[in-house]
């Protein structure tokens, strides 16, 4: 661990705690020890941080939605209604939990817990303060996308268990919509992986040129195997090294990703499964009390997961121009404690809230589609668009159209100037 001024400043400030500080320093010096990982999982990028961030994100979303409609939004709880989502959840926890006589009580109770844990696990993959999330192994992009289909499964199961007529119709609709929008989501999530693959397969001298500019690549940096391309960590790292977020390279797939994401999280143009005016609350009709609280929290978490994945894949995750102040090159990419945390998180939050603003804006703009229009929209428009996008990228990279190398250098030069 390089010489670290941080601890000595602390010792200077608090001489009387010198004994505890030295112990703490010893603990935190350990690379990959248990306490550090526990802290990561439970507190910082883990459960606590993420759940409060998702509540804040819901508040932010409702405020933007309201302000766009020229009204005020939640106001009276806390400063400008910031505690409103928390208040909702606490109120729901206190409410009585009515179970329908016909429904299978036990499995209906299990579903929200399953949904809650699923969304928390999904959020572990998102890189918050450094280019790799808490859990990051080779090929974790595919695992994340698979978990989102599992989340769709819980939605269908709850509606089915609740044996309510509205629930039945809501489940059928949820099934159709979530499956139809799984394909464009996966396709558009794979485009960054394709870009990373082409970036690394480029002739070596370009790499060397790049290396001189940015210094050494991280040791595990040369992913030639298929699984290494599909890791979120490599995607964010490549965006950091190239210096261009992939949204500039493949804007269409970012659009497709956002639309498919809104269908996954059931935001307004696509909230057909729980359309309030038609079938009361769709698959959520029979859930109340604690179950509903868990479902609302897990839907917020999934909302945050969507926005986080969008930032990681397209906007370059925690990477940002102010990234390399006072950090050694090796630490820069591995995210050393503590500076890496601060800048990485700030950039992550800025980008997540930008994505949430876009989604909130889209939510205000559209009326709700009918279920047949939603499904038609997916099969007729979104999937061909995603294929087209991949096609364009392949041809552009493979045939070296309009001098890919030259454009590459030009882009590099612009990035360097930022």
């Amino acid at each position, binding site marked *: 661990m390089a010489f670290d001024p941080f601890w000595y400043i602390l010792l200077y400030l608090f001489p009387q705690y010198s004994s505890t500080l030295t112990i703490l320093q010893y603990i935190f010096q350990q690379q990959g020890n248990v306490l550090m990982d526990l802290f990561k999982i439970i507190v910082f990028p883990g459960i606590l941080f993420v759940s409060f961030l998702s509540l804040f994100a819901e508040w932010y979303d409702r405020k933007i939605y309201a302000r766009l409609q*020229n009204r005020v939004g939640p106001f009276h709880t806390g400063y400008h209604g910031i505690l409103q989502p928390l208040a909702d959840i606490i109120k729901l926890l206190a409410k009585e939990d009515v179970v329908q006589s016909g429904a299978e009580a036990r499995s209906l109770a299990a579903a929200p817990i399953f949904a809650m844990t699923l969304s928390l696990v999904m959020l572990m993959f998102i890189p918050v303060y450094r280019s790799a999330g808490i859990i990051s192994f080779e090929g974790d992009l595919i695992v994340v996308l698979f978990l989102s289909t599992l989340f769709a499964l819980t939605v269908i199961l709850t509606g089915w268990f609740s044996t309510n007529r509205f629930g039945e119709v809501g489940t059928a609709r949820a099934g159709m919509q979530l499956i139809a929008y799984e394909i464009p989501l996966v396709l558009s999530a794979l485009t960054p992986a394709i870009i990373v693959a082409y970036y690394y397969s480029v002739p070596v001298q370009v790499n060397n040129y790049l290396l001189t500019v940015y210094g050494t690549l991280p040791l595990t940096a040369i992913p030639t195997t298929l699984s290494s391309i599909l890791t979120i960590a490599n995607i964010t790292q490549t965006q950091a090294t190239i210096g261009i977020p992939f949204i500039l390279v493949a804007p269409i797939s970012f659009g497709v990703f956002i639309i498919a994401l809104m269908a996954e999280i059931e935001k307004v143009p696509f909230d057909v499964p729980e359309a309030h005016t038609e079938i009361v609350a769709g698959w959520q009709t029979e859930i109340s009390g604690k179950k509903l609280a868990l479902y609302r929290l897990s839907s917020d978490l999934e909302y945050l997961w969507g926005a986080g994945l969008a930032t990681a894949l397209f906007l370059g995750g925690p990477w940002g121009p102010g990234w390399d102040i006072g950090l050694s090159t090796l630490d820069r990419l591995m995210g050393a404690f503590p500076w890496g945390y601060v800048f990485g998180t700030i950039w992550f939050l800025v980008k997540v809230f930008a994505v949430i603003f876009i989604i909130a804006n889209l939510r205000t703009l559209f009326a709700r589609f009918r279920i047949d229009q939603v499904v038609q929209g997916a099969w007729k428009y979104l999937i061909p668009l995603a294929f087209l996008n991949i096609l364009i990228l392949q041809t552009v990279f493979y045939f070296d159209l309009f001098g890919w190398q030259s454009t590459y250098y030009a882009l590099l030069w612009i990035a360097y100037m930022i």
Partner: protein
Amino acid sequence: MPRPAAMEPELLRNFPRKPFTVFYPFERLPPAEGLRGRQKLYLKRCVGCGTCAKDCPSGAIEMIDWPDEFPQELKNKAGKVPKVDLGKCLFCEQCVESCPRDALEMTQEYELATFDRKAMEWIVDMETE
């Protein structure tokens, strides 16, 4: 000719503007001057004839004899005074119209919610002029 996101310019124009909604308990919009609120009775002009009680569409006005907390010297010959049950009153201003001496008048007070129905019974504030 369908233009996607047709409402976007309107949304962005309204985004920075101050929201239209008013915080009722804290900020109050001034009531219109023609508003028909609670009744006001001019004791000196009232002769206790009871036409307002007859004309009231919902039968909210009841003639009761002169309560003692009213100034005795203004007591009219019939010794009757209208009592308005605001629970039944429609605020339609028919009593003000049909009163021969125009002793009744509508104020602009519209916040009349109370917990107890009894409190709704007798809310006619009196004027002595």
